[in-house]
């Protein structure tokens, strides 16, 4: 079962990559972009028995560095 983990920088943490992307978009002539923040999407293929708490633990222990990053878990509804 595919579970998605989105890892994003916390608000207020400077995102140099997002800034560079923003700058490049402006360079391409795209207007109206107020801000860009870059993050990560991690897809986990999990067995049915893996609980939400387990996934949270994975995020806290490895997938996100909670000093600077937030994470959001997206699990498909159990069939």
């Amino acid at each position: 079962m595919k579970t998605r983990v989105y890892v994003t920088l916390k608000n207020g943490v400077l995102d140099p990559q997002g800034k560079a992307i923003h700058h490049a978009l402006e360079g391409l002539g795209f207007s109206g972009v107020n801000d860009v923040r870059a993050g990560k999407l991690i897809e986990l293929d999990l067995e049915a028995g893996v609980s939400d708490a387990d996934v949270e633990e994975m995020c806290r222990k490895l997938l996100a560095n909670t000093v600077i990053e937030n994470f959001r878990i997206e699990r498909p509804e159990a069939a």
Partner: protein
Amino acid sequence: MKSAVIVFPGSNCDRDMAEALKLVSGKAPEMVWHRDSELPQGLDLIAIPGGFSYGDYLRSGAMAAQSPVMRAVREAAERGVFVLGVCNGFQVLTESHLLPGALMRNAGISFVCRDVALTVENSQSAFTSRYEAGEQITIPVAHHDGNYQADEAVLDRIEGEGRVAFRYAGAVNGSARGIAGIINEAGNVLGMMPHPERAVEPAHGRTDGRRLFEGLLDTVLQPA
């Protein structure tokens, strides 16, 4: 002084570190592979070198922090063994929670590789005892993720406790409060982005890094 250098796949300053330790202490360190779950007995110092451990996958230092050897390093640090993390080693130490904060992509995006001026903030630690507080030294940096960040409360605390060892004298990578190196609460773990092992002999062009190792040697050799 009995020392060890931890070697991860992707470490590339491990031999420089070993040479510096050998030069200053007269004794070659043991090279310890990341899969080893035990460290040699009787270590005084563990050095975690620079490089790109595990290709910097996920985050710099994140995979190395989970390796078997780091469990042993964490236990040794708790027992009071000195731990020095340089560059990627500093990233490994923050990811291992042996030091607070995190090292993010340089504020200017670019990899920075040059000599930088540092101010020695604390000359009371075992790592900095051969320096004068306020002294300016020059040590090379070579990193992409050296932008030190922590929340204001953590920054205030480490500043208040004199745990900022080195600060950049000019702008380098966007680090909060110009922090280049910090020490843990117990005073036996130092993480720093600049490379002291690359400034230990005249052939390097400067020797400002040498006193860091000499200070450690003084402490280790001191009769208890």
